[in-house]
């Protein structure tokens, strides 16, 4: 993830927090403080001498919501009329819509007892973090005028290609594969050792080299002779990949030829999985082997 974006969201969550340092946060805090001053001034105007912090806070919140709503609404009206910047009339309509008598406003603004508050400190407006630009933005097709808004980034509506420069160095790849496998194996065996019985090679530190305890099995030859599922899986994979390599291995076959007939023989003698030729398989149906014959029913005793 991009660290910049991450910070942005973080600041919103941390409003009111003590350690606010980023410019965006500062900006927001300054605004908020101004609002508080305004609320306090209004309260004084109304004759309050003091107010609880919570009350001020609530009022500030209400004020902020109100102003925000005016802004949002005004923006909506303006966009409704296909403009992009709100005008005075938009705001007026908004105020009216919100039940505020707009014509009273000039009078109120000019009241005598109003307090003048100091201008809010100038803070830099937060820079809207740049949207992640990924890939090339599309140019407008010919039938769309050039002044129309640009297309958004393709990742927002087409796809997000998140590839990184692949590590192509063979050595690093092997290294990584090897250590990854080793780590997995070690973690797995450690886990198994911790959850079950173990042998220890040392008397002083039983946990040093934990060996999973040997468990006798009832039919030990099965696991010792049958290939594990993992092996079968790799066998399948290599079998299928071999078809791609076919040409390759045919070329290589010439190189393998050697003067050891034994090994050569074996090469050719190992059919994959001992598959019986299919022609033979069909003959199987007619094989007359005494062990395949049906078991006879017992003879009915004739005598007695």
């Amino acid at each position: 993830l991009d660290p910049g974006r991450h910070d942005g969201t973080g600041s919103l969550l941390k409003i009111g927090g003590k350690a606010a340092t980023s410019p965006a946060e500062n900006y927001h805090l300054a605004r908020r403080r101004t609002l508080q001053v305004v609320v306090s001034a209004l309260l004084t105007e109304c004759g309050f001498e003091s107010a609880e912090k919570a009350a001020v806070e609530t009022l500030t919140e209400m004020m902020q919501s109100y102003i925000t709503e005016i802004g949002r609404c005004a923006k909506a009206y303006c966009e409704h009329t296909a403009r992009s910047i709100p005008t005075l009339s938009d705001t007026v309509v908004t105020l009216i819509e919100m039940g505020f008598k707009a014509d009273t406003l000039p009078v109120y603004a000019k009241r005598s007892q109003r307090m003048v508050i100091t201008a809010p400190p100038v803070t830099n407006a937060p820079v809207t973090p740049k949207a992640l630009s990924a890939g090339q933005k599309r140019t407008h097709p010919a039938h769309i005028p050039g002044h129309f808004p640009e297309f958004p980034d393709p990742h927002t509506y087409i796809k997000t290609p998140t590839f990184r420069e692949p590590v192509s160095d063979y050595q690093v790849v092997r290294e990584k594969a090897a250590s990854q496998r080793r780590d997995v194996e070690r973690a797995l065996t450690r886990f198994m050792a911790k959850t079950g019985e173990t042998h220890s090679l040392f008397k002083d530190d039983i946990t040093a080299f934990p060996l999973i305890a040997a468990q006798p099995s009832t039919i030990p030859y099965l696991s010792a002779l049958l290939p594990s599922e993992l092996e079968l899986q790799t066998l399948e994979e290599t079998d299928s990949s071999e078809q791609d390599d076919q040409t390759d291995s045919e070329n290589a076959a010439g190189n393998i030829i050697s003067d050891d007939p034994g090994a050569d023989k074996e090469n050719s003698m190992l059919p994959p999985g001992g598959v019986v030729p299919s022609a033979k398989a069909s003959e199987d149906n007619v094989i007359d082997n005494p062990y395949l014959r049906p078991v006879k029913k017992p003879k009915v005793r004739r005598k007695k």
Partner: protein
Amino acid sequence: MNRKKDKAFESPLHITYLHCFSIVAFTTHQVVCINNINFQRKSVIGFVELTIFPTVVNLNRIKLNSKQCRIYRVRVNELEAPFIYNDPTLEVCHHESKQRNLNYFSSAYTAAVSAVDPDAGHGELVIKVPSELWKQDDLKVLKVYIEFSLDQPKGGLHFVVPDVEGSMAERGAHVFSFGYQNSTRFWFPCVDSYSELCTWKLEFTVDASMVAVSCGDLVETIYTPDMRKKTFHYVLPIPTAAPNISLSVGPFEILVDPYMHEVTHFCLPQLLPLLKHSMSYLHEIFEFYEEILTCRYPYACFKTVFVDEAYVQVSSYASMSIFSTNLLHSAMIIDQTPLTRRCLAQALAQQFFGCFISRMSWADEWVLKGISGYIYGLYLKKTFGVNEYRHWIKEELDKIVEYELKMGGVLLHPTFSGVKEKDNPTPHLHFSIKHPHTLSWEYYKMFQCKAHLVMRLIENRISMEFMLQVFNKLLSLASTASSQKYQSHMWSQMLLSTHAFLKSISNVSGKDIGPLIKQWVDQSAVVKFFGSFAFNRKRNVLELEIRQDYTSSGTQKYVGPIKVTVQELDGSFNHTLQIEENSLKHDIPCHSKSRRNKKKKIPLMNGEEVDMDLSAMDADSPLLWIRIDPDMSILRKVEFEQADFMWQYQLRYERDVVAQEESISALEKFPTPASRLALTDILEQEQCFYKVRMQACFCLAKIANAMVSTWQGPPAMKSLFTRMFCCKSCPNIVKTNNFLSFQSYFLQKTMPVAMALLRDVQNLCPKDVLNFILDLIKYNDNRKNKFSDNFYRAELIEALTNSLTPAISINNEVRTVDNLNADVRLILEEITRFLNMEKLLPSFRNTITVSCLSAIRQLQKNGHIPSDASLFKSYAEYGHFVDVRVAALEALVDYTRVERSSADLQWLLNMVQNDPAHYVRHKILGMLCKNPPFNKATDSALCNEALVDQLWKLMNSGTSHDWRLRCDAVNLYYTLFGLTRPSCLPLPELGLVLNLKEKKAVLNPTIKPELGVSSVMDTNYFIKTPSMGLKRKAETPLGSPPEPGQVLQQQEEDARGGRYKIRFNTMEDEDIDMETVHDSQAFIHHHLNLLERPSTPGKEPPSVEQSMLSMPATPVPSFPKETTSSSSKHGAEHGHHHHHHHHHEHKKKKKKHKHKHKHKHKHESKEKDRERDNSHAYSNSPASGRSLRSPSLSD
């Protein structure tokens, strides 16, 4: 049978009659019907029916073989017949015997085996033919019907019943017959001889979910009326000996061979895919044998059965073979493939010679083993190539030579001229070779090895064509005979004897191979040559000197031709020299002048012409290398001296793999840069046989270690390995595995193992090498490989093991994790991970675990981690894969030796007695012999009386159900204590003999068999313990009044009381040579009459003389009648102790007493005694019990 008759039987004269028994009757047909097999109880019930043709009138008794069977009834032609069942091999020496010397045991054991030897007409089961049947004059066919059962058999049949939920079929429970040599008597009564042929009808009723596989043709399978079981009916029309009959029952998966529909394969559930793959090759072996023998496979069908916990890897029976299920493998396994094919080929070769053609007698065994081994060799040559074949021959030759030089000769064709023990043809052995059952397993393996090598020698002599013609002739004769109806002279054509074989050879080839047979078959031992040479420049002659050592044990003198091949500059020349009595020197004229044409190519033996760099050779001599007996046509060891450069030339340019291997072993003694170069070149040479290259790896490691101070460059083989197997771009990373080229694969496996043997100047494995191996493990990647890498990984662990060197230990501190050496920590890390991963993803045959266990033991032994046996014990338990168990047991045996742990030795011996797997029991004893906790030459705290007694008991009675195991126990006893009385035993009573004449005291040579206590007898003898008056001279100084005769004494100390002991004064009589038991037995007989008289007060001759025959029997102490009740068991055992105390007491009193046991017991009561006496002995009470009660006996 009345007593008179009994007496008659006791006379030695009668032996002749009994020896002739084998021709007084013939079995022509036998029915075996097993109608109940209970897997839960491990029991079997059935009957047999033998059809017997008497050839003499008055055939009044029939002897059959039967062991451990419980016999319920015997009927002859529908008439109840009394019978007696006695097996002297159950307990060889009676356990009260204090005898502990092996000489004594061996002869007693041989006597016991002879006493039931079917070839001599003996047997454990004696049936009395009802008089109605034999009193007529005409010869009538007898039908002997025997009902029997087996309960938890310890031998003969093996039940494998996994302890899981489900029905027996779901559990994969199965049962199969097994045994060493003729062991069929263990599971049904028969004439258990290879020379007694008959036709068979076999019926087995088994659970409907099971299959019964047996010999012959399956005629039909029928459900029982309740439809829950089915009966398999087999018919074997080809006359077959009982030992070739077998059975296996289990929920087998059935595979009909796709190439040969008469061949059916059986394996245990879930293994069918493996079976399909492993058997896909069998038809080629069939074709090969049928082609070379020009003879069809003799049986109508063939069955292979793969079982768990097999006794041996391969065992062949008539028309079927039983294999270990561990031979099955998938297509991903490289290493197992040739091994399995070899086993199949062996089994099939034995079908022709061994099953179809059987042997005439034990002395002819070598012919059958020889022929089957020889044709198996031909198969190896065809399938695996000439290189592999020659390599194998060399390996076998080296093996037999090593064995014979170490143990003394192996005799192929023993002839026993007389009954006398003195005629023992192999006095150097601690066992008798008179019977297969007394042979040590190791010896028997060597015997087979020698047999096929001798066949090869015969082939060298008469050519292969003639050889194959002889085989063909033997087979055709046999198959003609087999199709005949019973006619004794015809069927005997199916039995092969040494004589018939030699006659056939001389008929076919017209050559006289007499001297060859005399040298290698009738005589034991091998030849040992020492060769050296000098080149005489003036005469241009090679002066070759060939000396022989024929005085050390296992060697013999060779006289005759010998081939010498000399490679000169101008070519290779064969010379045949005559080795004669006194000529050592042989002059061989050379063909080439030394180095005239430097540029010329040098012709080799095979016609090839090569360029050689001749700068290394001696400028004055045209000789490149010399080989003595290059074709291995003498069973010999050659130690030949030639210069290092000659060996190097031989390695580089001689094309024969045997020569290459010889030169590699010779080069070990020449650690020079030139040797290094020659070895490295051969390693890189891809045309070179891979096993030679593998051997070169190890030699290179040895040379590198010898040259450690001057070695230049990277560690040996490292750059080579990098070049061959590592990535071009990053030389420290091995390529991802691709084992398509098997030679490379084997080399890749071997090189790290050899490299790890390298040592630097501090005698440590170089850091480079260790890191290199660790990297190989780290970067090992098998994902793209179509073969499994489990053997490769196992070898890498072995490499780690090889890299270990002893830890530097200060003051024997306890090994802790903290003071673990950093390198060892890395190694241990890998081993831990491997061993743990194996639990999650087990490898084929658990090779990884096997390697890890030996690595851990090595770490312990070198003092890196605390020595501890518990890990190995847990892996050795029943329930682990057998290879793992054996590896763990090997570590334990080693631990026992190093730590001298008596508890662990006990643990091992306990397993020998109780483990369900026969192979494991055999293996433990074998490993203990190879790596004994102590031996006869060393003193050890382990060597004590209790151990002697325990082992004695083990071989005496504890192993009576397994011939092989008993011989293993004998071997162990021999290894630990030697032939004589173990030194740790207290001296027997007469420890000091004072010789007044010479006025000195001498230690009684306790080696001599003690006569006084008990002895063993041969058939027809009742052993009588000799009683001799004490020599006064010896007695008097000891202050003990001589007690004449016997004293009947109440034993007050006896808690059970009321038992009487007959005390005898007995002492070895100087006048009589008691060197051997035989002599002692002769002596016994000499005194028989004297002792026959019931002169013992309080000891009455047993009144129930029911024995119809004198039985071969072991001596039993005599008890007064009241003790024959069940308490006699205790009586017997405690009596033993009792003697002991008593002796000591009397020693103090300086009184010399010895007990005498009079063995005038009836064998029935012996039987009873023994049965209760001995928990090891199989109880066979119903048999004997019945015969006791049998009314017909009292007539």
